[in-house]
């Protein structure tokens, strides 16, 4: 336990000490929300019929729609990149200090994943500073509901990161692999545009993407689709379904939880075989 805590503590401590990284982490979400989001907002508005839009569709606010996706993106990015520290530790030698200690490899792996999840959780919560500028209402109960979900998602993604990091020797290699992985997963998750009216092959990819369910959970918590007009809900792509069964929030939790168990198991097994 002490070992898990020590590994976790080191990552969290270093995260808060790195001011540049803290500030820099706002850049991407800011650009997506304000530049991309505001631009798209106008375009989508006019596609929906502009001023003459009928009834519920006039309520479609693209920036609002994107906000849960941006939170998802931030959590996802931070969690997966947290594993970069493993590769860097290898490059700078610190991994040896860790691996030759009597701590069990499993504790080290779990400490790393928990460290990454915690950092990603903080990073995701920091995105809430954008709330006043985009018109969504976030209440304390919503935040309390967001925290465990963010942590769960971050845990699953950090495990994927560790799995990849354990197999790679250089940071450049790691960054390459992550870039190649990150973009398709983001685009196919519904974070940046509504998942409606897609071609069948794309629909398939969306449904097997774990991020889809993560982003959908954030949407369900923040946008509260159950209070929306059905037509608007459909336009925002909030009726995620498989074989005509609309997936519920609890089912999504279950999917992500099962996935995170699988990923953390694989990552731990892989890490147990790592050479110092």
């Amino acid at each position, binding site marked *: 336990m*002490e*070992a898990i*805590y*020590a590994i976790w*503590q*080191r990552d969290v*401590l*270093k995260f808060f*000490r*790195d001011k540049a990284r803290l500030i820099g982490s706002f850049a991407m979400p800011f650009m997506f929300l304000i530049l991309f989001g505001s631009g798209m907002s106008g375009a989508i508005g006019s596609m929906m019929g502009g001023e003459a839009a009928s009834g519920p569709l006039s309520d479609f606010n693209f920036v609002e729609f994107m906000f849960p996706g941006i939170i998802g993106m931030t959590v996802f990015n931070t969690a997966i990149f947290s594993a970069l520290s493993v590769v860097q530790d290898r490059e*700078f*030698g*610190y991994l*040896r*200090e*860790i*691996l*030759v*200690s*009597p*701590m*069990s490899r499993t504790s080290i792996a779990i400490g790393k994943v928990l460290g990454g999840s915690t950092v990603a959780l903080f990073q995701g919560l920091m995105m809430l500073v954008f709330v006043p500028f985009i018109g969504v209402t976030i209440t304390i109960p919503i935040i309390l509901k967001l925290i465990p979900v963010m942590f769960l998602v971050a845990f699953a993604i950090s495990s994927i990161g560790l799995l990849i990091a354990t197999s790679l020797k250089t940071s450049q290699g790691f960054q390459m692999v992550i870039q190649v992985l990150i973009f398709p997963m983001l685009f196919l998750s519904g974070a940046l545009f509504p998942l409606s009216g897609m071609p069948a092959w794309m629909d398939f990819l969306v449904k097997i993407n774990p991020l889809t369910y993560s982003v959908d959970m954030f949407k369900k918590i923040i946008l509260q689709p159950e209070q929306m007009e059905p037509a608007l809900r459909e336009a925002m792509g909030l009726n995620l379904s498989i074989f005509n069964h609309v997936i519920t929030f609890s089912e999504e939790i279950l999917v992500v939880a099962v996935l995170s168990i699988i990923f953390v198991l694989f990552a731990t097994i892989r890490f147990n075989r790592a*050479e*110092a």
Partner: protein
Amino acid sequence: MGHIVEVSGLKKRYKKFEAVTGVDLQVEEGEIFGFLGPNGAGKSTTINMLSTIIKPSEGKASINGYDIVEEKNKVRASIGLIFQESTLDEKLTANENLLLHCKFYGVAKDKRKERIQEVLEIVDLTDKRANIVETFSGGMKRRLEIARGLLHYPRVLFLDEPTVGLDPQTRNHIWEYILRLKKKAGITIFLTTHYMDEAEICDRVAVMDQGKLIALDTPDQLKTNVGGDIIEVETENNQAAEALLEEMYSVEVTAAGQALTFQVDKGSEFLVKFVKEFDIPICTVNLRRPTLNDVFLTLTGREIREETVSGKDKMKHLKRGPH
């Protein structure tokens, strides 16, 4: 049992070559044991096997009574390791590095502060404890690593080339700390080096070459085994001189660089006679007591230094910054 480190028939094979071709040795408790040899002799590979970093291909070894394959974690708790390359977290302070180490090795909470103070005193870094390691000089980092290696009171401290890339003054300091340590903690020290003068400080030295131990004794005994005094001579025609020397005095001559080297029993007396009667003009002549370098030369026919200034070594000097 009885020996703190016990090694028998230890081998390490890689796909293409055998890095260590069979090492047998015992180290006594409280001893400074040196591993001497050129780069690529298999010193680090042996240390890495003993410290459970890599798995031996064959053979057995135990440290503090624990098997290095079967009881890895117990071995790890019994040893301290200082690697050739720095393994500090440079973004953290000295104190944070030490505190993390305490947690990794399960040092009890109420003892941590006291221990950190103690090891920082040994290496004279008490006033630097709150500084970020990034700002430390190469020598300070090394000292901090030695301090860290001691935190969990290891029975054996492994030092892999502890002074490589450091300037002579810092090297001397590091040695002072190591000797102070031996006196104070009674700890067993197992180190590798390719510096002859450092090997002289050891209680016993194992000379390693091409994956094998070729000698193991006290530095004095090793030198005595070489026999007599060493004469180094440079002449105007080394080739002819070599043949003539062998003919006149039936000595075994080794050519190393510009000089011819050979051993004689009574150096001073020989020298007088030699200068008088030798036909080929002599440029310089030098008489000295044998050093460990001569031991290596006698055992392998090569000088240890020829191989030490390799590309890798130069890189290390560059990486550690100017002296």
